[in-house]
């Protein structure tokens, strides 16, 4: 298979591209130097025989876990051997080793160690950090319980301080309080940072973090008082031992509470932490990773679907002519190109949040938290918006590959099942949208009371100026030029303003009818989610448009401008009702928008393959027979299938066990 040349269709597609894909790759990576380094690290992993293994699709769950843990331990050693320490470079290395999949040490490296660094006292760091760094201690982060996830205050695990022995007694008082889902908890970890309600001197002091040993060092057997195990099979995450943890009067020394901020003194006196806004920083960072992950997962799915659509020929467009590439059908372009544009949009949004976070993290450490609330609110919504969109988009890509998309060899099922939990973890998406909405409502109230707001919500300031005319904000006619991204940003801005205002008014109306604030909020929450979505959508269009100005190469600029236009116009087409209802666009303009979307499909068509090539996914990382760079799809599907476990023997044993006896009897 390796000796095969590149499929003629793909060769033709690449030759016809109007721009150089490498230049676009550099933009996505953040400069040619970053691209070079990424490829260098990629080569380190891909050329390393230690990281080779059988196709994971043919392995059982236990076998996949085993492969993952084998690779993870090698990975930790090699990272140190190569001296790779930059977080982004570690991320690349890890994602090449595990091919974009989760791995059992994820929480040890991503949560346990960082939490020790940020929340442990120097004394605690002395005790735990080096053993954890050297993997004598493997830890996880046990927050979610069977009964509670995103709503943290509802967690039920208790840690009761006993001053007589200077210990905390940990308990899982109900079935619902059993820790459930933490990665690496089931089989891998021997320690966990456990989040529990702290009780001291008879009072509940809320959630605090405790370092809890759960397995005996040496034998790895669960400690007395600890019940721990794997939560069973899931949609994806086969290589991860998501676990459960039940504690029964399990005692840990006082010094095991993470006490950099809050403290419990030997006599049980509780000392409050200084500020709780600091945790915002971590959340912003993790959400920026999810936005980036939305972009990457959708890019992978687009790469597969678009290359396959250039290779597959089907039916006829013109009577008597050979079967056309399915990418030439308008319906196929309409499924895939808006997603391609979305993937690019999300890349730029992810980069923006990361940059903003790095820019202000200096301020954060200096104690200036002024920009943090807005960023926190914005990233909640963007996390939800991008993960929802990518989730649906990956499925559309799979469906666009027809029957073969359904085979595991397409790689898209795996992308989907690995990605889809991000709609839930790190904050359930609907709850995230409502967090953003809370910020929007607060900003709206500020504006109506005469204050100015800044940042991404500053368009709300226009509302007060509008107040002279008692109409919808957006009822003023904006002359929207549908060929101009800047003008489209304005249209999105008007839509967001209109939906924020409408949600705020509905909320006020509910408040006037009812007494409870919570009830009014709940009865407006569908509107509030819509407002948040519109706000996020505006931010994304704005950021994509702003990115265009930074692109110097004319050819790349042209192709990105078309993608940006497609992204903005497709969004209008899909949400035409919002723009019509607010009077931002007329029916005639919507018809023009719909028409222009279709024209853009044809314009983007010649660059489609080059645009996915620019994402620069290596075949090993892509893990897809349909999306191979060389396009030799059918031959390799056959080769792949021959390795299936059902094909291990020519006659399956069930023939002798069941079929033959039945045939003999009848």
């Amino acid at each position, binding site marked *: 298979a390796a000796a095969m040349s590149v499929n003629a269709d793909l060769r033709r597609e690449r030759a016809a591209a109007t721009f150089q894909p490498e230049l676009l790759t550099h933009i996505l990576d953040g400069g040619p130097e970053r691209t070079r380094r990424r490829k260098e690290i990629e080569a380190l992993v891909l050329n390393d025989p230690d990281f080779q293994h059988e196709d994971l699709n043919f392995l059982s769950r*236990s076998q996949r876990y085993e492969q993952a843990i084998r690779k993870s331990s090698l990975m930790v050693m090699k990272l*140190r051997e190569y001296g790779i320490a930059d977080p982004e470079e570690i991320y690349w290395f890890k994602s090449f080793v595990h091919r974009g999949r989760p791995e059992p040490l994820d929480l040890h490296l991503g949560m346990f160690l960082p939490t020790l660094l940020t929340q442990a006292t120097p004394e605690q760091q002395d005790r735990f950090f080096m053993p954890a760094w050297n993997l004598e201690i493997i830890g996880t982060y046990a927050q979610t319980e069977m009964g509670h996830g995103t709503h943290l205050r509802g967690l039920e695990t208790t840690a009761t301080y006993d001053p007589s022995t200077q210990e905390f007694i940990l308990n899982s008082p109900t079935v619902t309080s059993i820790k459930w889902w933490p990665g690496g908890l089931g089989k891998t970890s021997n320690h966990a940072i456990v989040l529990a309600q702290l009780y001291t001197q008879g009072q509940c002091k809320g959630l605090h973090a405790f370092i809890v040993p759960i397995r005996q060092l040496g034998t790895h057997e669960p400690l007395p008082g600890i019940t721990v195990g794997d939560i069973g099979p899931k949609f994806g995450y086969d290589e991860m031992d998501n676990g459960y943890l039940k504690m029964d009067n399990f005692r840990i020394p006082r010094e095991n509470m993470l006490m950099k901020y809050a403290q419990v003194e030997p006599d049980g006196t509780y000392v409050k932490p200084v500020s709780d806004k600091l945790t915002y920083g971590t959340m912003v960072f993790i959400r920026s990773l999810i936005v980036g992950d939305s972009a990457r997962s959708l890019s992978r799915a687009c790469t597969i679907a678009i290359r396959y659509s250039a290779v597959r020929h089907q039916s006829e467009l013109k009577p008597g002519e050979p079967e056309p590439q399915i990418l030439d059908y308008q319906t196929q372009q309409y499924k895939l190109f808006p997603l391609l544009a979305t993937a690019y949009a999300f890349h730029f949004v992810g980069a923006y949040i990361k940059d903003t976070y790095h820019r202000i993290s200096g301020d954060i450490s200096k104690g200036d938290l002024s920009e943090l609330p807005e960023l926190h609110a914005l990233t909640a919504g963007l996390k939800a918006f991008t993960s929802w969109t990518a989730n649906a988009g990956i499925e559309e890509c799979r469906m666009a590959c*027809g029957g073969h998309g359904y085979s*595991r060899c397409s790689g898209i099922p795996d992308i989907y099942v690995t990605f889809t939990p991000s709609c839930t973890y790190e904050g359930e998406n609907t709850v995230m949208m409502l967090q953003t909405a809370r910020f929007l409502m607060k900003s709206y109230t500020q504006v109506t009371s005469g204050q100015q707001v800044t940042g991404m919500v500053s368009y709300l300031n226009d509302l007060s100026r509008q107040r002279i005319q008692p109409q919808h904000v957006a009822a003023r006619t904006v002359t929207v030029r549908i060929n101009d991204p800047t003008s489209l940003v304005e249209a999105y801005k008007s839509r967001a303003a209109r939906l924020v205002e409408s949600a705020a008014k509905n909320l006020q109306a509910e408040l006037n009818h009812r007494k409870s604030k919570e009830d009014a909020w709940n*009865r407006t929450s569908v509107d509030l989610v819509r407002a948040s979505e519109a706000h996020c959508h505006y931010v994304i269009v704005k950021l994509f448009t702003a990115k265009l100005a930074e692109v110097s190469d004319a050819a790349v600029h042209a192709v990105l401008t078309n993608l940006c236009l497609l992204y903005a116009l497709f969004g209008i087409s899909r949400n035409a009702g919002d723009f019509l209802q607010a009077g931002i666009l007329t029916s005639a303009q919507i018809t023009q928008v719909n028409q222009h979307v279709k024209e853009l499909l044809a314009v983007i068509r010649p660059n489609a393959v080059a645009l996915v090539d620019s994402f620069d996914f290596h075949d090993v990382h892509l893990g897809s027979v349909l999306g191979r760079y060389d396009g030799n799809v059918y031959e390799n599907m056959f080769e792949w*299938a021959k390795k*299936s476990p059902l094909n291990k023997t020519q006659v399956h044993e069930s023939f002798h066990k069941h079929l033959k006896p039945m*045939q003999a009897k009848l």
Partner: protein
Amino acid sequence: GVNPDLASERQTASFSVEKLTALLDGGTEQTRIRRAVVEAIESDPVFSRENQYFQTQNERYEAAVKKAVHLQKKMHEMGWTENGPEYKYIYRALSGDVAFLLHRVFMRSISVLGSDKQIAKWIPLATQHKLIGSYAQTELGHGTYLQGLETTAVFDTATQEFILNTPKISAMKWWPGDMGRSATHTVVFAQLYIHGKCYGIHPFIVQIRSLQDHSLCPGITAGDIGPKMNFEHIDNGYLLLKNVRIPRENMLSKFCEVRPDGTYVRQGSQKINYFTMTTVRISLISDEVLTPLMKACTIAIRYSVVRRQSKLKPGEQEAKILDYQTQQEKLLPQLATAYAFHFINDYLQELFNRGYREIQRKNFDMLPELHALSSGFKAVITQHCTAGVEICLRACGGHGYSLLSGLPSLYTKILASCIYEGENTILLLQTARFLIKCFMAASAGQPVPPSVTYLAAVKHGKCPAKNKLDFLRADIYTEAYQHVAVRLTSSTAAKLQDLIQSGVKKHDAWNQCTVQLVQAAKAHCHYIAVKNFAETVEKLETKAGIQRIMKHLCDLFALHGIFSNTGAFLHDGYTSAAQMDMVTASYLDLLAVIRKDAVPLVDAFDFTDKSLNSALGSSDGQVYQRLYEWAQKSPTNQMSPAYERYLKPLLHNTLSKL
């Protein structure tokens, strides 16, 4: 005992659950028979599905074969026959988790496409399971577009045989169920060549495995196509033919025959055959598409009244998540969709039965309409139901992601229905072709079939609703749907004509309009579904509160469709901006109303716990206990070979030596 949070939901039902179940089944007698079948199947341990989430592909396959064999015995024992009233409930009771489903397709294709002589020869053999059949149509390179298939069957007059070949890799048969490991015979679709001339696609019976030792026959390469998103129990297979010779009698020849001298003869009308293919699309809706959505709704809604999260009122207990408007807005429209499509399925079944009677009387007038309806509704129903199951899955948060919730496997199974029996986009374009044709005919004053007569009545009025309550009137919203369907069809027809008149070639014009054509076809089906739901509600008996709750669901189904697609209704000003606010208000009000009956409405689907096979959806609501106990049975908790092999060296400090 039953979780009090779930029990309390049942005490306030506004209607009789048992009566609604009977309505869904089509009568109390049907309910009784169905329950008896379910009971017989579920009490038999061989049919248990409890461990399926823990099993490998090989284990699932073996269990499915075992069940298929055992089913023969069971049917004999129970006195069930293929023509009896119990038969249609067996598959539902097994949740489709059984092998040899293609064996039936094999038999049906012989009955439909074979000559009397062929039927007499093959059907008894198949009935007695002397052979196991499959159906090999799809190839690696071609699916829905049948004319593109590349397998060849060349007639050799000298030996009176057909020589079958897979001339290139893309011509390999790929996907047929039961073919990878089980089948001994299959119906192969191939391009027929006689004396160098191609006569198009024809069906041939080909033996692929020995009846003695199950080894592959000479010239045959076959195997399993490898892991998929679901259907682990089915050995979807590949088949490569190399100079495989079969006797002339093995070409199914009801409609076309090859004489010994190579003369090709066409006989009879293919239209009945065509009708049968169309029927298959409708026949899969109930078991393969509606049942999974109904199960998913049952699981997600029951779980949403058991799960409590965060507080709605300070100082009170945490609220059931179904009390959150956003959760209602996710789940209740899916529930309404399940009911809407249940009734449209009844409507289609009836229409097809009528069509069948007409066709037997040699009246083929209904065929184009039936074809358009079956294509369009197959696409629309599978798409909506698939999306609905996924919404249910995600509405269950983290626990929905566990296989033990039952939701991931419902999802991965139902989504295959969007592809098999015709890819949805292509089917919608077929419906659109029919719509455009009918629209042109209607505009020219010619008669058109009943389901599209509305296209002739193009009106340019405005929606007459004056307040939000007006949008709870079926005539108001049905008319709005009709208006959108007419507008989309007529504007697309006009655009097609414009393009053609401006010199664009017909096929290019068609391709340039396909995005709009798809929208028109969807709007047409949506309109008919709303109209049919409203008419069904009208006819329901008013007793026992059933009509009232069905009316609410019908309103919700209709308003949800408008709410999710406001642009289509606002376009051209049929609905005003103010009216759209009324729609939203009525829609959100309905959520709170239906919320009260949500659990009784899923109880009425009458799924047993065994058939749901879900820790989250069981009828007693003991979610957490069940999840905990079930997880402990996972094989991953019984052994951990990775510890000795990898973890131990890791923990014992290989790293600190660095």
